[in-house]
C-alpha cells in the first residue's frame, strides 16, 4: 500500500533544489531520517532491541536459579543467610541513587544545562563506583570464609552451624555441598551484573568527556538517553537479584 503511494511521488526535490539543498549536519537529524522524532524513535527502538537480548541473557541465569532453588531449597536458604543484608540493602539504595542521577542527567541534557549534566554524570559514576566497592568488600569476605566454589570450598559452617554461633538447622554433608550451587549462582549473577556496571562506568567516562565538550547540550540527547536506558536496565537486574539472593529465608527456625 505504502509503496504504491510512494511511486506516485517521484523524489523531485533532490533534483529541483540541488543548489539550495545545503547539508546542515545535525547529529540529532541525519539526512536519511524524515524527522527528528523519527530518528529518535529509531534509536530508542534499536536500544530496546539490545536490551531485550539482555533480558534473555540474564533470564537464563534467573531460570537456573529458579530450578536449583526449588531442588535444593534448604541449602539455598542457609547459604543465602551468609550474605550481609545491611551491605546488600545499602548497595540497592546506592544503585537507585546512581540511577536517579542518571535520570537527572537526561533532563539536564534535554534542558541544555551543560554544567549540571556533567555533575549528574559524575555523581552517577561516583555511586556506581561505590556499589562496585561494596561488592568487592562482600566478595572478599566470601574469599576469607572459603565460600567461593571450587577445591577450597568449606562446608563446615553449614554442617555444624552451632559451632560457629549460627542459628540454623545443620545440613547433612551431602546437602551442604549444594550450598556451592548457591554461591556459584551468586558469583555468576552478581559478577555478570558487576561487569555490566564496569562497562557502564567506562562508557560514562567517555560521556563525561563529550558532555564537557558540549556535545549533548545543543539538542542532541540520544547518547545520554540511550545510555540511561542501559544503566536503568542494569539497575532493574539488581532490583531482582537483591531479594532473590539475599532474602530467601531471613527467619531461620521457621
Amino acid at each position, binding site marked *: 500500500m505504502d509503496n504504491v503511494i510512494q511511486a506516485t511521488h517521484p523524489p523531485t526535490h533532490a533534483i529541483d533544489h540541488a543548489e539550495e539543498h545545503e547539508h546542515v549536519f545535525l547529529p540529532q*537529524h541525519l539526512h536519511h531520517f524524515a524527522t*527528528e522524532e523519527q530518528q529518535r524513535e529509531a534509536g530508542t527502538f534499536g536500544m530496546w532491541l539490545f536490551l531485550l537480548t539482555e533480558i534473555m541473557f540474564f533470564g537464563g541465569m534467573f531460570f537456573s536459579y*529458579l530450578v536449583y532453588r526449588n531442588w535444593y531449597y534448604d541449602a539455598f536458604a542457609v547459604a543465602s543467610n551468609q550474605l550481609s543484608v545491611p551491605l546488600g540493602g545499602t548497595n540497592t539504595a546506592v544503585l537507585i*541513587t546512581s540511577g536517579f542521577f542518571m535520570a*537527572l542527567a537526561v533532563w539536564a541534557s534535554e534542558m541544555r544545562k551543560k554544567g549540571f549534566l556533567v555533575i549528574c554524570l559524575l555523581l552517577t559514576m561516583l555511586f556506581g563506583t561505590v556499589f562496585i566497592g561494596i561488592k568487592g568488600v562482600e566478595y572478599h569476605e566470601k574469599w576469607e570464609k572459603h565460600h567461593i566454589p571450587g577445591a577450597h570450598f568449606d562446608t563446615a559452617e553449614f554442617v555444624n552451624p552451632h559451632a560457629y554461633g549460627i542459628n540454623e538447622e545443620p545440613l547433612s554433608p551431602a546437602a551442604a555441598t549444594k550450598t556451592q550451587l548457591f554461591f556459584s549462582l551468586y558469583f555468576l549473577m552478581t559478577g555478570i551484573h558487576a561487569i555490566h556496571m564496569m562497562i557502564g562506568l567506562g562508557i560514562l567516562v567517555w560521556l563525561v568527556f563529550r558532555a564537557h565538550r558540549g556535545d549533548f547540550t545543543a539538542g542532541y540527547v540520544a547518547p545520554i538517553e540511550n545510555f540511561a536506558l542501559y544503566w536503568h536496565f542494569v539497575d532493574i537486574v539488581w532490583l531482582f537479584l537483591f*531479594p532473590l539472593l539475599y532474602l530467601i529465608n531471613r*527467619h531461620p527456625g521457621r
Partner: protein
Amino acid sequence: MTELHDATNVTNPEHAEHHIVTPRTYIFVFITLLIFTGLTVVAAYIDLGIFNPVVALAIASFKAVVVLLFFMHVKYQSRLIKLTVASGFFTFLVLTTLSLSDYISRAWGLW
C-alpha cells in the same frame, strides 16, 4: 523539511513527541524506590510461609515497572516502543514457562 515528510508515506505517523520528564517526577520515583527497598527487607524478616518469595517478587516487579515507566520513559513513548518492551518480558515468561514445564515433568522426586 516538512514538505519532504509525506504523511501518507509513513506506516506509523505516530512518532512520540519528545516528552521531557521533570526532576519532580524523578524525585518522587526515587523516594518510592527507596521506600519499597525498605519494605522488601522488612517483609523478608516476617514469616509469611509460602508467600515470602511471592511478596519479594511482587515488590521487585513493582519497582522494576516504576523504573521502566518513569526512569526509562516507556510511559511517554510511542506504541511501537511500548509493544517492543512488553514483547521482551512476555517472551521471557513464555520461555520460563516452557522450560519449567519440562523440568517439572522430568525430575519427579525433586519437586
